[in-house]
């Protein structure tokens, strides 16, 4: 377990008659970038929400082996009555970051995600979708989490920002951080990920290392992913 930051064992989750997750088991190694792939409704967000404690599994176990966890949702939402700087201020307060350190972190991290820090004077609900996503990145980055879970990391971002975020992920990996990324943009993830987990209709179909897959003759992740969609489920 020392090398594993996430260990999910036989997770099951039903929403009424809908079986959202079936015996979902996988693990995430420390210092890696894991791509969590699946179609719409495959169970990616449900799995993530269980990992983060927003949902309770009907059965199964989750072990998170880190003290500082970060999360960027698909479409981040913020308290409508708060300005950007207030959100960062409250987050910093919660994680014991003082004012001076916060100011330098905001300057440094804003540049990393291409966020215009002048926006911080405005209420976050007035931001565009892309800027709300960047705001969520900024909020997480000031905390410097050991494990960052991102649902649709590139949703709402323009191509320049996508490149910045991709570089950011690689920088974080260099710093020894672990990333768990759930996305539909397989080609973007393929450029940076080390591990891949594929989920379909609530079942894990594949959990492997990207290099191992390449050595096995799989040309690209997208073709591999699509090939799984035609396989019958057990």
């Amino acid at each position, binding site marked *: 377990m020392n090398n594993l930051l996430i260990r999910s064992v036989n997770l099951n989750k039903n929403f009424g008659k809908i079986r959202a997750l079936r015996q979902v088991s996988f693990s995430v190694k420390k210092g890696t970038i894991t791509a969590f792939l699946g179609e719409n409704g495959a169970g990616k967000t449900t799995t993530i*929400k269980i990992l*983060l*404690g*927003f*949902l*309770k599994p009907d059965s199964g176990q989750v072990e*998170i082996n880190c003290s500082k*966890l*970060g*999360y960027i*949702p698909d*479409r*981040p*939402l*913020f*308290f*409508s*009555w*708060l300005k950007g700087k*207030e959100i960062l201020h*409250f*987050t910093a*307060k*919660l*994680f*014991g970051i003082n004012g001076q350190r916060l100011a330098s972190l905001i300057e440094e991290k804003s540049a990393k995600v291409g966020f215009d820090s002048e926006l911080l004077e405005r209420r976050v609900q007035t931001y565009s979708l892309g800027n709300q996503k960047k705001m969520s990145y900024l*909020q*997480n980055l000031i*905390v410097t*989490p050991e494990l960052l879970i991102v649902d649709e990391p590139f949703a709402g971002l323009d191509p320049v920002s996508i490149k910045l975020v991709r570089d950011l992920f690689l920088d974080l990996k260099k710093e020894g951080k672990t990333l768990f990324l759930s996305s539909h943009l397989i080609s973007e993830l393929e450029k940076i990920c080390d591990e891949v987990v594929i989920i379909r209709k609530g079942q894990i179909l594949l959990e492997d290392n990207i290099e191992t897959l390449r050595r096995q003759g799989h040309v690209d992740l997208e073709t591999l992913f699509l090939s799984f969609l035609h396989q019958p489920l057990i």
Partner: protein
Amino acid sequence: MFAKTRFKVNFLLIQKKVFRSTGLCFLSLVPGLVVFYVLLADSLAMAINFFLFLFPYTFLFLSGDMMKDEIESGVLENIMFLQGEYRAYLLQKILALTILALLPSAAIFSMLVMAGLLKGNFSWIYLLQFLAGLVVGIYYVTLGSWLSFYFRGGSNVLIIIMAQIMAILSLFFSLQKKIGFLDYLEKGHFPNLLYKIKFIIFTLALPNVLIARKFFPYLFVLVMATGFFLFRQWRRIKNLELKKQ
């Protein structure tokens, strides 16, 4: 992360919400404005009586828009509330709102007390009545927040106000009898168990009447009801899952 820091941040978050809501601020100021008007138009004693009857409404008004909207909107799916911390936030909201309502109420009461002491017409019973009002206020916050699990922003408060209007109307209907509920209410004595139960139900809808000294013994009903609503909310929050609508 310490529990103390968590509460401090949650308190500040809720404080910002209250201060940024114009409607909420205005409604919460209404009891204070009424008291000020009575003070100018009538006497200090009357103003204190008005204040003691009205100030628990500050607690009620602040309890609007407590739970449902935030739970269902997705705003709690944030790094600040990971790994079950949103539960602490929701539970601490009840305490934070109580403090936020208590602060201006205590400030106005202190001013009235000082004025009363200076004029020489202050009675210590006012202090007990203020504490009784505080029990009523805490009851309002717990009832309002419990209702806000089922009703969207503000509707929970409206439901309580409607129940109070119905309770007052029922008093008027009792006037048709030779000796009705209103007469017993005025005397502060109820002839049998049925009337006592009726009064208890009446106080659950309009608890402000318990600020009258003669009804102090019935405050235990409110304390029990507060405990019940708190327990129900604790159970609900403990098992709560965030499912964005």
